[in-house]
């Protein structure tokens, strides 16, 4: 984390009037452009030649595991190479090249390199690796983790419950749930003329490793290591035309997702519920492809300082992976047709407007339409329940379509140089296709705001409003047969919302800045008899920064969030209704600073404390049943000490202590055989206690070595 936060929040001034004069002024300046033939720029230190730096060192992490290695790649206690390099070259004719390589010794390595000619073309290559490290505490008896066929050891003893699996303890082997996302990109830009620019990009992404999924035989299940072997290739190409009157951008995007492992087959670890049900098979994500054409641009008008923006796109999403057989049971066939021929049409149109019809008045509006139209032919299938029970009633696959029309608008008026007021609103009309619980929903939202500058340097913005969602009648026939008709899925359900925000920033002195941000919102699903009833959200944050001089700066920041959810349930006529609540709290408190201790020494320190608490409870017939509290606690201290050895050489010592601990009733004390009908991986709640020390030597070469520091 950067040692010193940037100065928070801009100061809003009574500037609407300026907007009109501004555009006029800009035009005047352009028209009154001077003769620049004598502007030699002789003192301009343009980059020429090469420059760069190399960082070489080592870091040692003690106590590192997957919990710390998530996204960092520092996932075990060992020594890692800490290597980075950057450089650039530029010739007088504008030919240039650059590269930037980071974290080469870690699984989170990234790099970029480019070559080009100023104002003519650029070609760039990017590489990025994101390591996802989920759990290193799991174990499974299944053999073949990482592949598409999981079997059990020869000595396996199947049983009706996990307690009876007598060979379990002897056959458990550790399994890591981890995968890497590696992305390589090639991008090019060509400036064809002063108005036209062409661009193209190809991105190849590989995601491979092991995820976590489950396989079930209706009443018995097992957590399984899921093979991940995905490749996504994306092509983007387009042209942009722009001059001072308008702009037009035309783009094509094609994206092809490919999964080389189309299914995960696994041996039933339980005694089969019916004869022959000894193997299960799960479908893995099917290959798909997306093609999209888009145009977008703007049209600025000098008339009333008005500007239009526009966008449109059309595309289709297709999927035609061959179906698996209905079941692993003997005699199961592949359905006809043998693939979905899935085809979803995507469309988007949008117009935006910004205008200043009066010097003190500004108007903004957006209108958009989004369509997701599923043209896939529904299929009617007599499915086999969990590779166990054939002969289920034939069902027709529902297809989901919706289109949304969204209107937004706002008006702001500057009453005086210290106060600006505004009103705004949104309207969202969503039409749902067949097979859904409602035909349409209509969301409306309105708000008012005021921005006050009562003192120099102090800006306060207050905003409050409410929103409401109304729906067409509930279409009970769209509910699955067993579903309770009193439940109204919350994404369709009528909802009332009220919200309020407060933001303030105060530059108290030239060196001291304080900002605060607060938000609350209450959602009430007023017509839902079952399901989600309400969501209450509270947020508050503050930051104080102090920069007494160029060589010293400090900050303190903190935040608190609370989220409360309440939902109702009902099991049947002879049981009491029940209620479940989830109350979550998050805190963060940070502080730190940067100090140039002496001419060659710079010290930076950051501290972070971030706990969270989650309280779940159920209430049956009015009797409260609280769960043990889920919690997490993150404490982190980072120290950076830099010594400028010579003009070109620098030493950097970094120390990080980070401790994270958590409690989770869904994972804690849940071993592989804890649950009678779930053979679990037994992963533990995340925790780490890491001390990391890194020492690196940085050497600058070329022009950078003699240039002023950045």
């Amino acid at each position, binding site marked *: 984390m950067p040692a010193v936060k940037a100065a928070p929040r801009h100061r809003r001034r009574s500037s609407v009037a300026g907007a009109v004069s501004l555009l006029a002024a800009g035009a005047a300046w352009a028209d009154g452009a001077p003769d*620049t033939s004598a502007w030699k720029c002789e003192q*301009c230190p343009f980059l020429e030649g090469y420059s760069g730096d190399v960082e070489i060192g080592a870091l040692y992490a003690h106590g590192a595991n997957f919990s710390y290695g998530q996204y960092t790649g520092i996932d075990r206690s060992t020594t890692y190479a800490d290597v980075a390099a950057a450089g650039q070259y530029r010739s007088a004719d504008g030919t240039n090249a650059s590269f930037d390589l980071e974290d080469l010794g870690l699984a989170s390595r990234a790099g970029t390199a480019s070559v080009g000619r100023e104002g003519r073309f650029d070609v760039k290559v990017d590489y990025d690796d994101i390591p996802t490290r989920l759990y290193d505490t799991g174990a499974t008896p299944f053999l073949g983790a990482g592949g598409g066929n999981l079997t059990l050891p020869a000595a396996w003893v199947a049983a009706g419950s996990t307690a009876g699996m007598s060979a379990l303890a002897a056959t458990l082997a550790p399994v890591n749930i981890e995968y890497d996302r590696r992305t390589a990109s090639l991008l090019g830009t060509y400036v064809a003329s002063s108005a036209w620019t062409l661009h193209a990009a190809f991105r190849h992404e590989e995601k491979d490793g092991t995820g976590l999924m489950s396989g079930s035989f209706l009443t018995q*299940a097992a957590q399984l290591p899921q093979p991940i072997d995905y490749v996504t290739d994306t092509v983007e190409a387009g042209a942009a035309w722009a001059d001072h009157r308008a702009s037009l951008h035309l783009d094509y995007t094609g*994206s092809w997702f490919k999964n080389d492992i189309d299914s995960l087959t696994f041996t039933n670890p339980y005694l089969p519920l019916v004869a022959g049900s000894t193997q299960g098979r799960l479908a893995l994500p099917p290959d798909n492809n*997306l093609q999209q054409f888009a145009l977008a641009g703007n049209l600025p008008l000098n008339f009333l300082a008005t500007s239009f923006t526009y966008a449109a796109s059309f595309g289709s999403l297709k999927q035609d992976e061959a179906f698996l057989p209905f079941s692993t049971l003997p005699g199961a066939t592949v359905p006809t047709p043998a693939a979905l021929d899935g085809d979803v049409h995507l469309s988007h149109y949008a117009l*935006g407007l910004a205008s200043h019809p009066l010097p003190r008045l500004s108007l903004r509006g957006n209108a958009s339409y*989004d369509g997701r139209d599923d043209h896939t032919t529904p299929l009617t299938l007599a499915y086999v329940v*969990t590779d166990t029970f054939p002969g289920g009633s034939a069902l027709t696959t529902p297809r989901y379509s919706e289109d949304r029309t969204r209107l937004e608008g706002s008006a702001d008026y500057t009453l005086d140089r210290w106060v600006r007021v505004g009103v705004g609103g949104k309207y969202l009309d969503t039409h749902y296709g067949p097979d859904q619980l409602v035909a349409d929903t209509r969301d409306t939202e309105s708000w008012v705001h005021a921005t006050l500058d009562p003192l120099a340097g102090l800006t306060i913005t207050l905003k409050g409003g409410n929103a409401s969602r109304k729906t067409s009648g509930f279409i009970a026939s769209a509910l699955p047969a067993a579903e309770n008709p009193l439940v109204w899925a919350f994404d369709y359900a009528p909802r009332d919302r009220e919200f309020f925000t407060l933001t303030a920033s105060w530059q108290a002195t030239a060196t001291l800045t304080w900002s605060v941000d607060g938000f609350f919102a209450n959602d009430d699903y007023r017509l839902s008899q079952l399901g989600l009833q309400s969501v209450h959200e509270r947020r508050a944050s503050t930051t104080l920064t102090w920069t007494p001089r160029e060589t010293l700066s400090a900050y303190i920041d903190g935040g608190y969030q609370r989220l409360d959810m309440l939902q109702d349930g009902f099991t049947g006529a002879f049981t009491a209704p029940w209620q479940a609540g989830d109350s979550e709290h998050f805190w963060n408190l940070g502080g730190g600073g940067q100090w140039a201790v002496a001419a060659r020494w710079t010290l930076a320190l950051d501290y972070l404390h971030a706990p969270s608490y*989650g309280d779940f409870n159920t209430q049956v017939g009015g009797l409260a049943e609280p769960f043990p509290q889920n919690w997490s606690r993150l404490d982190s201290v980072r120290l950076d000490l830099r010594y400028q050895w010579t003009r070109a050489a620098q030493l950097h010592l970094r120390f990080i202590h980070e401790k994270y601990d958590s409690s989770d009733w869904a994972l804690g004390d849940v071993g592989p055989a804890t649950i009678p009908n779930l053979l679990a991986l037994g992963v533990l709640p995340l925790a780490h206690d890491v001390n990391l020390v890194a020492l690196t030597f940085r050497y600058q070469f070329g022009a950078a070595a003699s240039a002023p520091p950045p």
Partner: protein
Amino acid sequence: MPAPAARAALFIALLAGAMTPAVAADQGAAPAYSAKGADSCLGCHDDPALLSLFKTKHARPQDDRGPFGHGGLQCEACHGPGGAHVRARGKQPAGIVDFGPHALATPARQNAQCLGCHQSNTAHEWAASQHAASEVPCAACHTLHAAHDPVLATATQAEVCTTCHQAEHTDLFKPSHHPLREGKMACTSCHAPHGSQGPFLLVGNTVTETCTRCHAEYRGPFLWEHQPVAEDCSNCHSAHGSAQPALLKTRPPFLCQQCHEGAGHPSVPNGPQGLPGGAPSAYLLAGGCVNCHTQVHGSNHPSGRALMR
């Protein structure tokens, strides 16, 4: 559903209506420029931090699109005519446009300088954006004289954005989060701060289109779809951070029971009796509902009706 052709016709008609000829701007008296351009400025403004501008794309003499290209107005391209400022030996800053959140120039005035070049390219959707409506100056986010603008680097961008978006700063530290805190993802992976025609300044037209740019395995269309997945990922996930695994809003079974109350196990209350000290329940522990309904994003299995295959 309305006919797409009708929508397209309406869109084109509105666009055509918008393309009325521009009215020429009023022309004011042109302020005077300096005599020698950047050489006039650099005589006094020789702070190394300012000179780092010459390591950036804005100082490329062979790029005629930039301020230091052929015929460019150099420093005054952004800061405005400085003739009076030079003649007064710096004592008359009036007319000079300064930049930043605490600058004397208003955000609108600052931004007009930037938009003079960028309103047709990077910022072509700026005018109707929420950031423009909130009068955010470009320089509140961009550090133009720095050799490496922090907001343009994946590793440092989130710190810049959360200077204002402070609630999202707290989100960075939640147990489940996207890799922003670790510097492996930027806010701009999902959001278009210069304007977007999608909701929440998203880079995609919809929430789902944005998420599936990276999570292409969930794009489908699947044989058996899960309606809220096809509609909007944020029905179940909190993209900025969560205390629950996989960025979920709350955890199964409660999340699932917010919509599903069918006869049998979906309607049964799952209380603490189902914890390991009592009668450990597969409905509650480990993955909860997804212990069996593992294909919650959709299934392409012919027998995947209940999202179990």
